[in-house]
C-alpha cells in the first residue's frame, strides 16, 4: 500500500513530527509513505493531490493550508475512491473520511482560560497582553480567536495591546516582538500562537531584559521555551502531539483498507505544559 | 533653392538657451532655414551643435527660446511632436535598437501594417522589401535585412540611421555627422542624397567635421563656439581656411583641411 501525506511546510517542528509519527506507523503496517511539502502555497497542495490521484495511491493524509481551497481535490479523491484524512485543520463540510487532530479554537479557549485563571490568581486580575501571531495562518488565527473569547468570558480586567505579525518566521517574529515590547513598556504578558512566534518571543524577552516582568504563554515547546519554563517566566505552553496525529491518521487509513470502520473525528488531545509537568517533555530536546 | 532674400522661412529658432548643471550648453542661439536650403552647422567639439539640433527635433526641451516652423510658433515636448511637423533627424549616437533587425530599425515608429480580420499586423514582407530597396539606393552592402543591428559594422549602422531619416518625406532633415563612419563611396551617396532632397524642397541641416563636404552641398554655413552663434557665411563668400579659423576661434594652420597638393599628395 502507498499512502501520501501532503503537508504545509517543513520549517516548523510540528509538521516534521507529524511526518515522523506517520512514517513510524506506516513502517509498522508495512506500507509505503510518500510526503509532499507545499511550502506554504495553497494551490500546490491541490496540484500534489491531483498528481497522487492520477497515480492512484491508496490514501491521502492532508494538512491543509486553505481549508476551503482543498475541497475540490478532496472531492476528486473521493470520486476516484481514494480516502482522504485531514490532520490538524478541519475541512468545513469536506468530503474527507475523517479528521484527526486538535480543535484549535477549543484549545485556544483552553489556554485562554488557563491564562485568565493565572491572571486572577497571580496578577490580581489585571494584565496587559501583547500577541505575536501569524496572520497568514488559518489555524493560528483560530488559536487567537479562541484565546480572546475565553479571556473575554472570564471577566478579568485584561487589556489586549497590539497584535504583531511574526509571519511564522523566527527572525521576523523576534524583531516584531522586540518592537512590541518597546511600544508597550507596561505590557505584562505575551501570547504567541505558534512555534516560530514563541521562539521569537522568548528571545525577545531575554534580549530586552524583561524576564522579570513579562510572562509568556504560547504554543509548541522548544528547548528555549523549556528553559523559560524552568526559569519561571514562561508560564504555560500548549503542547500538541503531532506525532500522535500522524500515527493516528495512518492507522485509520490502514483500518479503512482492511474494510474496518473509523470514527469521523479522531481527537488527539493537547497538554498545557507548565512547571509541574515539563519534565515529561524534556526528553524531546536533548 | 530659394532666393536668400526671400522672407519665408521653413524654420526659425530664436533665443534658444539650455543649461546642464554648471554648463551653459546653449546661450541665446538662433538659427533659420529656408525651404530647400542646405545649412552647414559647424563648430568645435562640445560647441553645442548636437544639442541645438536636438532642440529642433524635440529630443531636448530648451530652457528658453522659440521655434517657428513655416511661420507658426511650435512647442515640441517630445520627438513625436517634431515628427508630426515632418522634422527628421539622424542622431550622432545613431539611436538604433540593437536587438531589433535592420528592417525594423529603418521603419521604427512607422511600421507598415496590413489588416487581417481587422487586426493591424505588421507587414513584415513589405518592410523587408522596402528596406532592401532603400539600402540599395544608398549603396549600402548589408547581407540580410533580418540581421540584428548589434553586430553590424560602424558604417553599416550609420547607413541605417540615415536611411531611416531620409525615407519618410521630411520637410526638415537634420543630419548630425552622418558621414563620420562612412567609406568613400557611401559618403558620395549621402552627399548625393542631400542634393537630391534639397532639390525637392527639403530643408537640410548638415553637421559635419569634414569641412570639404560643406563646400559640395551647402548653401550657407553657421559657426558655433562654446554654445553661441559666432558667424554665418554664404558658401560663395568663404573658404575652408576661413571656416577653420572661425571654428578654432583664431588663425589656425590645419594641414588636414588644406588643399591636398600642399600636403605632398600627388594629383
Amino acid at each position: 500500500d502507498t499512502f501520501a501525506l501532503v503537508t504545509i511546510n517543513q520549517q516548523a517542528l510540528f509538521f516534521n513530527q507529524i511526518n515522523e509519527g506517520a512514517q513510524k506507523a506506516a513502517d509498522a503496517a508495512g506500507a509505503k509513505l510518500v510526503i509532499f511539502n507545499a511550502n506554504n502555497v495553497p494551490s500546490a497542495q491541490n496540484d500534489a493531490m491531483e498528481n497522487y490521484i492520477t497515480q492512484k495511491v491508496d490514501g491521502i493524509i492532508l494538512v491543509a493550508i486553505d481549508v476551503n481551497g482543498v475541497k475540490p481535490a478532496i472531492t476528486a479523491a473521493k470520486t476516484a475512491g481514494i480516502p482522504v484524512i485531514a490532520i490538524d485543520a478541519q475541512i468545513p463540510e469536506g468530503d474527507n473520511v475523517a479528521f484527526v487532530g486538535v480543535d484549535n479554537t477549543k484549545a485556544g479557549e483552553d489556554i485562554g482560560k488557563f491564562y485568565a485563571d493565572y491572571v486572577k490568581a497571580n496578577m490580581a486580575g489585571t494584565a496587559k497582553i501583547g500577541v505575536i501571531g501569524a496572520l497568514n495562518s488559518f489555524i493560528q488565527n483560530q488559536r487567537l480567536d479562541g484565546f480572546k473569547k475565553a479571556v473575554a468570558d472570564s471577566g478579568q480586567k485584561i487589556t489586549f495591546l497590539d497584535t504583531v505579525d511574526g509571519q511564522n518566521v523566527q527572525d521576523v517574529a523576534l524583531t516584531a516582538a522586540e518592537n512590541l515590547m518597546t511600544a508597550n513598556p507596561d505590557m505584562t504578558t505575551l501570547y504567541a500562537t505558534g512555534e516560530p512566534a514563541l521562539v521569537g518571543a522568548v528571545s525577545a524577552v531575554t534580549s530586552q531584559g524583561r524576564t522579570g516582568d513579562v510572562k509568556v504563554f504560547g504554543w509548541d515547546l522548544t528547548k528555549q521555551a523549556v528553559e523559560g519554563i524552568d526559569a519561571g517566566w514562561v508560564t504555560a505552553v500548549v503542547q500538541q502531539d503531532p506525532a500522535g496525529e500522524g500515527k493516528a491518521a495512518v492507522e485509520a487509513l490502514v483500518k479503512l483498507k482492511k474494510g474496518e470502520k473509523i470514527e469521523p473525528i479522531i481527537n488527539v488531545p493537547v497538554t498545557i505544559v507548565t512547571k509541574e509537568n515539563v519534565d515529561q517533555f524534556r526528553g524531546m530536546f536533548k | 533653392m530659394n532666393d536668400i532674400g526671400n522672407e519665408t522661412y521653413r524654420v526659425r529658432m530664436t533665443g534658444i538657451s539650455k543649461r546642464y548643471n554648471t554648463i551653459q550648453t546653449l546661450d541665446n542661439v538662433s538659427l533659420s532655414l529656408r525651404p530647400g536650403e542646405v545649412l552647414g552647422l559647424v563648430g568645435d567639439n562640445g560647441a553645442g551643435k548636437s544639442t541645438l539640433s536636438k532642440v529642433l527635433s524635440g529630443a531636448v526641451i530648451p530652457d528658453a527660446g522659440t521655434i517657428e516652423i513655416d511661420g507658426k510658433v511650435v512647442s515640441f515636448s517630445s520627438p513625436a511632436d517634431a515628427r508630426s511637423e515632418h522634422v527628421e533627424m539622424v542622431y550622432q549616437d545613431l539611436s538604433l535598437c540593437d536587438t531589433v533587425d535592420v528592417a525594423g530599425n529603418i521603419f521604427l515608429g512607422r511600421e507598415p501594417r496590413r489588416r487581417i480580420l481587422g487586426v493591424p499586423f505588421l507587414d513584415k514582407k513589405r518592410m523587408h522589401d522596402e528596406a532592401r530597396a532603400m539600402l540599395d539606393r544608398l549603396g549600402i552592402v548589408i547581407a540580410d535585412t533580418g540581421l540584428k543591428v548589434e553586430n553590424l559594422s560602424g558604417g553599416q549602422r550609420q547607413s541605417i540611421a540615415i536611411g531611416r531619416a531620409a525615407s519618410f518625406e521630411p520637410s526638415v532633415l537634420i543630419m548630425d555627422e552622418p558621414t563620420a563612419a562612412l567609406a568613400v563611396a557611401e559618403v558620395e551617396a549621402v552627399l548625393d542624397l542631400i542634393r537630391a532632397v534639397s532639390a525637392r524642397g527639403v530643408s537640410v541641416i548638415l553637421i559635419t567635421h569634414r569641412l570639404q563636404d560643406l563646400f559640395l552641398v551647402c548653401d550657407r554655413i553657421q559657426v558655433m563656439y562654446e554654445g553661441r552663434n559666432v558667424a554665418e557665411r554664404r558658401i560663395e563668400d568663404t573658404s575652408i581656411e576661413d571656416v577653420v579659423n572661425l571654428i578654432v576661434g583664431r588663425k589656425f594652420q590645419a594641414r588636414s583641411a588644406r588643399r591636398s597638393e600642399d600636403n605632398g599628395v600627388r594629383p
Partner: protein
Amino acid sequence: MANGSVVSIAIFFLVVCLLFSGITDAFLTAPNLLNIVRQSAPLLIVAAAMTFVITTGGIDLSVGSVLALVATLSAVTLQAGLPWPLVIIAMLLLGAAVGAIQGFFIAYERIPAFIVTLAGLSVIRGIALLITGGYSIPVEATSPFTVIGRAWFLGVPVPALIALVVLVVAYLVFNETRFGRYVTGIGANAEAVRRAGVDTRLTTMMVYILSSTAAAAAGIILAARLGSGSSNAGQGFELEVIAAVVLGGTSLFGGRGTLVGTVLGALTVAVIGNGLILAHMSPFFTPIVTGTIILVAIWLNFRLFRGAIRSR
C-alpha cells in the same frame, strides 16, 4: 541570444520529460499531462504577460499579490450574491486598474519598477489579508463560476484552453504588431524608440496593465479551481513566474524576449514539480534536486550552445 536559448530550453524540456517518462509510469499518461497543463495555466498566463514586462527592461513583483487579492475578492463578491459574469469582468477591470496605477508611477513618474511593484506587492496582499482577516472564503461548488477552473471542454480542461488562447494572442501581439515591436525596442534603447516618435510612456504603462490583468485572470482561475479565495494564494508566485520567463531565454536587461521560450520555461518548471512528486522524491530532497536539475541542465546547454549563442 534569444534563439539559442529557445533551442536550449526546448532540449532541456524534452530531456526532463524523457527522464520522468522513464522513471515513473504515471507521467506519460493523458490524465497526468492534462493535469500538468491545468495546474500550470495560471503560471503560463502570467508568464506570457511578464515576458512583455521583462522585455521592456522592467519587472512586476506584484503579480502574486494581485492574484491573491482577486481570488479573495471573487469569493467575497460571489458570496455577496453578485452574478458571476459581473464578478469576472469586475475582477479583470480591477487588475487593469492596479496595473495602470503601478504603470503610471513607473512610466510617467519614472520610479524604478522594482520599487513600485515591491510596494504594490506589500500593499495589495495587505488589502487581501484585511478583507479576509486571514481566513479563507469559500465559493459555492454549485456556482457556474467554478466552471472556469474545473470544467472540461472537448476533452481539455477549461483553464488549459484559456491559457492556450492567451498564449496565442500574446505570441501574435509580441511578434506581429507595432506594440510588440516597441516593447522590444524600449528594452533595447528606450531613447531611440522615443526619438522615433513613439509614445514610450504609454507603451510602458500598457505592459504593467497587461501583467496585472493576467494576474487577475490567474486569480479567477485559481479561485474557481480551488473553490475558495485565500489571502495566502500565490505566495512567491512572482519569483516562479520570473524564473519561467528567464529560464525561457528572455533577458532581465530587456530588449530580448521570446514567448515560445517562456512557455517552455513554465512547462519545464511544472513538469519538474509534477515528476518529482510522481517519482516519490522525499520532500527533503525535492528543493535540492529541483535546483540542481535546473542549474546543471542550463549549464550543459550553455556549454553545448555557447558557439551558437555568441562567440567572441
